[in-house]
């Protein structure tokens, strides 16, 4: 009998505030150990938390953008446990009265649209970082007190693909609204997965395990795959699943249970008496809602309906707002579907590929997108061959070149052979005459041999010919 996966995700996203959630120290990533600290994040005697209002705004618009009901009244609580990277001996978090409730995200993992419910979004402060090296354990409190939102989904996801699709959609939304930088490596967007399995048709939930330490989409996919297979194997063997927290070991490619002692916490949550209930005024909420830009889903459907892109290309372009913005900026006024599609594949294909191989980044070339659009148009119009386009881009992205100059000079010496040049016709005729065997084979039905003739032409012209034109002329000669 078939098995079904049931997955719920808890995403921790770091809010992009200047300062920490409850104190004035910088919330920036990195820095010398213990350089981004203040009395609150050090847990000094008498230090009191004061809520960062910008973090509240960001958490609220994250809720609005994920269709949540933003709560006008929410409460911060203390989550008590001892650890050296938790300076106060408790983490300030929202518990039974979070800032956002009851939202959803629509995703499509290739099997049609699915609505994934979001249980809640709550605000909390991050802990510091412990590291254990020869000679002792070290604590860096730079991250302690950095604002996070935790976004908790219902167990609505049914496959690793859906989990990744949900995470990508959520990540894109948070980046679009400017509250999170989406960086999985630095841990500013991280995820725990609750995974259980059950027989298809079963309505009750199986016993779940929580998987921690997931810091890439690949890892999430692999960990869910491993964990669900482990659970199925165990149940099939007649064993029961124990509810526990498991860590993903990326090197070994498996999950392993945390020591049970680490799981036996009674956090003794109670409302933090240092912080009055968080009240959000209706007019603030209205004003914040007005600042939410076009979200990825809206943008994708506009790209499909207005520009004629296919859904996969729209999804690719809209994963982050910079790419989508760059595309629209480069597209400019001429938005015919043919050009829109061509430019989209140009940006995501040839241009992205050339950029990848160079030392340049998108940021370096953003000022030259108008020129790049011209290059694209020349190529699309057949004035640049594929080979020539590659040469132009390589030259333009060379580390020592001025980007604009390179494009300019590339334009000068493209030297494309014009389509009406009689010399081309002569050359084609000569090549056909010189290869009677290939001609005969072609005419007997081996039409793939057209590539051989094109190759001969291109070799003689060092790639400086319009492949489409050459193709058409050769076809006429061979078929005629």
């Amino acid at each position, binding site marked *: 009998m078939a098995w079904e996966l049931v997955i719920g995700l808890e995403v921790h996203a770091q809010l992009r505030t200047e300062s920490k959630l409850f104190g004035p120290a910088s919330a920036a990533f990195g820095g010398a150990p213990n350089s981004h600290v203040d009395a609150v994040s050090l847990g000094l*005697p*008498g230090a009191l938390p004061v809520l960062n209002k910008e973090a509240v705004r960001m958490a609220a618009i994250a809720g609005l953008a994920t269709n949540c009901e933003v709560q006008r009244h929410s409460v911060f609580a203390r989550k*008590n446990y*001892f650890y*050296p990277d938790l300076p*106060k001996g*408790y983490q300030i978090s929202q518990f039974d009265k979070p800032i956002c409730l009851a939202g959803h995200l629509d995703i499509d993992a290739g099997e049609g649209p699915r609505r994934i419910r979001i249980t809640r979004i709550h605000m909390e402060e991050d802990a510091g970082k412990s590291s254990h090296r020869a000679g002792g354990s070290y604590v860096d409190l730079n991250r302690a007190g950095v604002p996070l939102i935790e976004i908790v989904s219902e167990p609505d996801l049914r496959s690793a693909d859906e989990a990744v699709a949900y995470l990508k959609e959520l990540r894109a939304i948070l980046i679009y609204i400017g509250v999170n930088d989406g960086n999985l490596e630095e841990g500013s967007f991280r995820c725990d997965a609750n995974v259980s399995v059950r027989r298809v048709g079963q309505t009750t939930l199986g016993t779940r395990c929580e998987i921690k330490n997931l810091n890439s989409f690949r890892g999430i996919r692999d960990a869910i795959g491993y964990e669900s297979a482990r659970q199925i194997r165990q149940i099939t063997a007649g064993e029961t699943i124990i509810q526990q927290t498991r860590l993903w070991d990326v090197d070994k490619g498996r999950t392993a249970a945390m020591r049970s002692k680490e799981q036996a916490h009674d956090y*003794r949550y109670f409302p933090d*008496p240092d912080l009055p209930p968080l009240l959000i005024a209706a007019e603030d909420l209205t004003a914040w809602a007005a600042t939410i830009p076009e979200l990825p889903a809206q943008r994708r459907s506009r790209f499909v309906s207005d520009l004629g892109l296919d859904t996969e290309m729209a999804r690719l372009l809209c994963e982050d707002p910079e790419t989508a913005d760059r595309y629209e900026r480069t597209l400019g006024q001429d938005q015919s579907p043919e050009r829109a599609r061509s430019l989209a594949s140009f940006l995501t294909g040839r241009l992205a590929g050339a950029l990848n191989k160079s030392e340049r980044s998108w940021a370096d070339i953003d000022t030259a997108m108008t020129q790049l659009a011209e290059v694209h148009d020349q190529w699309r119009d057949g004035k640049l061959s594929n080979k020539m386009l590659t040469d132009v881009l390589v030259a333009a992205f060379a580390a020592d070149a001025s980007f604009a100059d390179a494009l300019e000079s590339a334009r000068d010496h493209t030297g494309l052979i014009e389509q009406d040049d009689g010399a081309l016709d002569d050359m084609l005729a000569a090549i056909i005459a010189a290869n009677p065997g290939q001609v005969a084979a072609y005419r007997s039905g081996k039409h793939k041999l057209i590539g051989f003739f094109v190759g001969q032409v291109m070799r003689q012209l060092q790639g400086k010919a319009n492949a489409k034109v050459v193709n058409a002329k050769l076809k006429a000669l061979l078929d005629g």
Partner: protein
Amino acid sequence: MTLIECASAIAAGSLSALDATNAALARIESADVHLNAMVHVDAAGARAQATAVDEAVAAGQPIGPLAGVPITIKDLIAVGGQPLTAGSNMLAGYVAPRDASVIARLRAAGAVLLGKTSLDEFAMGSTNETAATGPVRNPWGLDRVPGGSSGGSAAAVAAGYGYGSLGTDTGGSVRLPAAFCGVVGLKPTYGRVSRSGVVAYASSLDQVGPMAATVRDTARLFSVIAGPCAADATSRSEPIGDYEAACELPVAGLRVGLVHSWLAGLSPEVHRAVMTTYDALLAAGATGAAIELPHAHLAVPAYYLIAMSEASANLARYDGVRYGHRAELHSSDTLDTLYARSRAEGFGPEVQRRIVMGTWALSSGYYDAYYDRACRVRRLVHDDLQTALSACDVILGPTAPSAAWPLGAHTHDPIAAYQMDIYTTAANLAGLPAMSVPVGLGDEGLPLAVQLIAGSFKETTLFQVGAAVEQRQERLSGPAALQAAIAGGQ
């Protein structure tokens, strides 16, 4: 000389701040061997502050309302550059990196900070006997407790170590020692005074409060420390009253409420003191009202559950990792055993008792029966007081059931000691302002006091009534017991 007289004389140039400071330091020098009220004296710093004031006066520069007035500070409040121990070995050697907000306000007003006063460890006690530096003695009877937890501050004011002090009051910790030592003590409305830089005991109850010899002196101190603070999210921005002017207002027409159930358990002399005060206020034109507080008997258990629960979290930061006491590392230690030994060595028995009970009360399975139920009782006590204060302007009652009791009387019976807070905790639970005012000496020559409770942010009413109560008392002259000890020691 009172605080206000001292400030006026310094402002007028007829008294030098340095002389006033030197006199206070000399008094500490001669008396504190008997009282043990100071845990840190900053003589050099105090003299430097006093000299600066004298120079400002000489130069005709504007000076603050406390310019040159020497005062002391409970060692639960951070004074930048000075030790901050909270009366505990846990914080031995810790030096506060900066001033608490109230200290910054005192400095801006020109006050001279003499040093830090003793307290019950982490403000947990009613007798000042849990202090790591040993008990403080009551200047009116050296075999008596000064009350707690701000016992050092109350004894310092009574003994003339300067002209005032700042204490903190979580369940009576300003008012009870004020009553036992014959000085005035105010517990302000919750949120009226910043808690930033004050070591937390129970955050939803703690307030810094002024202590001084007279009601007017207390008003002067309070005017300086009251007000909103951006570093304390629970501070409030209601308008500040003119507290000194309130001391001059007649009480005629005010309604004074008497809680009859609070008269039952009092020593005869305290009972007499409350009733005499009541009669005197009525004679001055106030009207009387009988008040019921149906849930008052639940205030003490609710208070202790809430305070201990909050304390169990507030004191978690004292783990020996970043500062404070850390036990010597043994080769067999794990993180948990090192934590446990550091905290067992650093905290005294009463603090440990309260942390353990608070942890218990918040634990899964007990939360509803203890912490949550206590919060619901707190609401009932609050509502009782609000109802009462709609029928009267001020509630009159005792501060403590008796005069100061002997040292060691409750050492082995913490529950009996907790019951001494029976009249003070209600104001903390309800967040209301309350004042203890001395009303003369009892049969054994020990100070007696009454307590006044008013509505939220109505400290003006407390000063108005407090001044009227004080007016019909003879000023207490210096405590004879201390004088005798000093004379005997010489």
